[in-house]
């Protein structure tokens, strides 16, 4: 893990309140798996903000983040301009173990701002010869992003809560539409969604990327724990996760 001032190469709006940020720096070489995250320092805010790595290119030393304005910190982040430096700590945690997924087909299930880390995940899977089908859920049409990018990788089912795009409903409502035979699913989104997904797919091998409020982001403060089913009894999302096997953690 590194702490680096990375250069902003691109910063643009891609959906309602949703911004894409391309950063350049050495830290990109340390990325092991899609689904890892970076911890961003924003001037005037005491704690760093965790944001998943949506895509990365070690050759160009760039990585892409997609974030949604949720509060004052992400709002302040939107004011940072191309050419400026951003204080980034990372890459953190364990991502989706794409190289260990040996299968014909895998299902991607992303909800809202949980979609970004699944993009590089889907790309890696496809590179490794695993076909991907994706279910992407958003609140509304204006919140949707990365659709074309996912479509370029395989079949995509979109759901929106208000029905303004794709199927009306939640990601789990689209599960019956997936006719492909898949043994693995990889999911990221709000905890309620992850729980619904895991409950719907008890027989599949699932990987879930979780969220929790963080202090350190490196495993030292025990802010980000989730109950686990192993002897230890807990996992730290920032370093043991954010990606866990579905059966490892207790979702509540």
């Amino acid at each position, binding site marked *: *893990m590194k*702490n680096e001032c990375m250069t902003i190469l691109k910063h643009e709006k891609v959906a309602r309140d949703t911004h894409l940020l391309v950063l350049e720096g050495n830290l990109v070489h340390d990325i092991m798996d899609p689904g890892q995250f970076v911890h961003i*320092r924003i001037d005037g*805010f*005491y*704690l*760093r903000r965790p944001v998943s790595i949506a895509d990365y290119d070690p050759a160009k030393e760039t990585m892409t983040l997609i974030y949604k304005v949720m509060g004052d*910190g992400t709002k302040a982040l939107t004011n940072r301009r191309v050419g400026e430096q951003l204080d980034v*700590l990372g890459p953190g945690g364990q991502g989706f173990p794409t190289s260990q997924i040996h299968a014909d087909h895998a299902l991607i299930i992303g909800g809202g701002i949980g979609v970004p880390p699944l993009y590089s995940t889907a790309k890696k899977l496809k590179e490794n010869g695993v076909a991907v089908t994706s279910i992407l859920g958003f609140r509304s049409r204006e919140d949707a992003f990365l659709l074309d990018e996912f479509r370029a990788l395989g079949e995509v089912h979109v759901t929106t809560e208000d029905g303004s795009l794709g199927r009306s409903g939640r990601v789990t409502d689209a599960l019956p539409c997936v006719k492909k035979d898949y043994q693995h699913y990889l999911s990221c989104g709000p905890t309620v969604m992850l729980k619904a997904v895991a409950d719907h797919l008890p027989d599949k091998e699932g990987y879930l990327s979780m969220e*929790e*409020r*963080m*202090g*350190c*982001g*490196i*495993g*030292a*403060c*025990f*802010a*980000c*724990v*989730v*109950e686990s089913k192993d002897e230890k*009894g*807990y996992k730290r999302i920032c*370093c043991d996760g954010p990606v866990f096997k579905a059966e490892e953690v207790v979702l509540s």
Partner: protein
Amino acid sequence: MNLSVKLPGLNLKNPVMPASGCFAFGKEFAQFYDLSKLGAVIMKAATKEQRFGNGTPRVAETASGMLNAIGLQNPGVESIISDEIPFLKNHHLPIIANVAGSTVEEYVEVAERISSYVDAIELNISCPNVKEGGVQFGTDPALAKEVIRHVVDVSVVPVYVKLSPNVTDIVEMALAAEEAGASGLSMINTLTGMRIDPKTRRPVIANGTGGLSGAAIKPISIRMIHQVYQAVTIPIIGMGGIETAEDVLEYLLAGASAVAIGSANFKNPFICKEVIEELPRTLSRYGFSSVEQAIGGAHDEEVETSLLRS
């Protein structure tokens, strides 16, 4: 520049150490820099058995600070002795064990068990985030004395008592600790606070209240150390909102003999190392030639300063 400080049980090559609970047992920070640069290390709280702590969310952000209610999550004293201390020992730096408990008996058992593996004990009678034990020992001088006396009796190393700032009279608590046999004080633990999320209409932190730390609390800590320094003869390890070498100097002047850096490790994982590296320049800029010279400087009768504004 001589940065060294000698305290009971602790020969510090410099006065800067990470604060308890903000550095776990050092492993995570060892990937960023060589831990042997540190003056010492204060470990995460140890209790008798493993503790899982409070529900999440456990942290919340505040203006120039943060709230936490981890709830003393730790693997228990035996596991700390067998799995954590050996790693720290490799770095040849003084180790301070933060000892917590729910009852006098638990404090005593933990202290007795761990004291021979470490250089000093920081007796945590001030954790605001657990239902039992913790802070009531830190707000009642009689209870404090009792637990301190027993721990001092069983410990083979000096005991530093970590005081809670959530009290009307900090001097009274400090005097109680001194009388009960403490070799030093550690000041301050967090102030009890709360944030409410207007979306959920509930406290942000699952526990309801949490402990406020960070730059926001520095003026309160400086005030308390300044008061206590005049009342006791035992040394003080100061903490609360330290982010720069100037902050360290402010603590030394107020009366701290050494300092600990807590939450700022989350902003900048290199903070302890950077502050240590900067300290000599800062001390000499303000006319000091050693750390010792600055300790309690704000209490000296005569001050010579040639720093005039023009």
